């Protein structure tokens, strides 16, 4: 077997793709080398396919954090504000004009913002640890597909709220959040699809028992997030921390 012109040093130690020839007939001597080269190629192909389709570094800790935020804000809304709709057109603000409805809307927005910032921060940290870039076509797709149902739902909730259907806010936010997760799961961990199905079901069920809808909300956004985040954390992150 001839082995002239051996190519330059093979690995540059960088994580990015270096352009060294692979699988050149003349470079391969033993079956063992063949095997290593082939395995390296397949590994690289797999990584590139993954990187270009799915963002797999979603943080389970962020999910748990979102759950905690949701539990705190549902405590404030239910206990402090006494906001417990039992019908879609719940006349809450007529009963007690002292309560500012903007307080509830603002609290909801702050909760969403905090939860999403936590998710972005912790997922960025995970991606960096794996030597992955954060801002790629994949994460842009993930964000776009997550935000389309979420913003649609948010807008619908506000428009209905404006017309007095404030009791629909809790069920609809669960339903649209579930849809957003299912939509986004095509560009991330497929596990989050199931989280989406759960939120969707909790949201639909809460319409059937309207007087408990705020508790369903606390259950879905709070408890389910805590458990699911913990599950993702144990499954994907524990070993590297």
């Amino acid at each position, binding site marked *: 077997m001839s082995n002239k012109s051996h190519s330059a040093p093979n690995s540059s130690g960088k994580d990015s793709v270096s*352009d060294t020839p692979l699988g050149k007939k003349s470079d391969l001597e033993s079956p063992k080398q063949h095997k290593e080269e082939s*395995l390296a190629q*397949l590994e690289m192909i797999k990584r*590139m396919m993954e*990187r270009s*389709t799915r963002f797999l570094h979603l943080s389970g800790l962020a999910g748990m954090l979102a759950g905690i935020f949701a539990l705190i804000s549902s405590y404030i809304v239910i206990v402090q504000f006494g906001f417990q709709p039992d019908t879609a057109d719940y006349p809450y603000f007529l009963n007690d004009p002292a309560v500012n409805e903007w307080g509830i809307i603002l609290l909801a927005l702050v909760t969403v913002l905090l939860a999403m910032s936590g998710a972005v921060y912790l997922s960025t940290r995970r991606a960096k640890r794996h030597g992955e*870039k954060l801002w790629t076509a994949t994460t842009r797709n993930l964000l776009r597909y997550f935000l389309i149902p979420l913003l649609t739902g948010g807008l619908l909730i506000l428009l209905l709220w404006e017309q007095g259907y404030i009791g629909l806010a809790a069920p609809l936010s669960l339903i649209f959040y579930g849809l957003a997760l299912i939509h986004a799961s095509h560009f991330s961990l497929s596990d989050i699809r199931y989280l989406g199905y759960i939120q969707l079901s909790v949201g639909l069920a809460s319409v059937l028992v309207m007087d408990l809808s705020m508790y369903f909300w606390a259950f879905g956004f709070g408890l389910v997030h805590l458990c699911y985040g913990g599950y993702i954390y144990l499954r994907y992150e524990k070993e590297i921390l």
Partner: protein
Amino acid sequence: MKVELDNIHKVFESKIRLGIMSALLVNESLDFTALKEFLEVTDGNLATHLKTLQKNGFITIKKRFLDNKPNTQYAISKEGRLAFTAHLNALEALLKQLK
């Protein structure tokens, strides 16, 4: 033992070309920026490899304007899909043979 390497196409000897084909196989089409981000290579380097793939008829190129800026979309061609799949099969066969 004679190992069959004929199906390992010369075009796929470059890791970058292999990476481009991997990304294009699982995406309908990708633009230059997206490919650059995935592969973490320089503009010139990527352009050269894309040209090689195009010359071999493995990818198709579509130029269009996006927000008044030229945007080039790359997609895998039928020939490219066949060649790349054959390459994957060859790799797998090789591994099986060496087990």
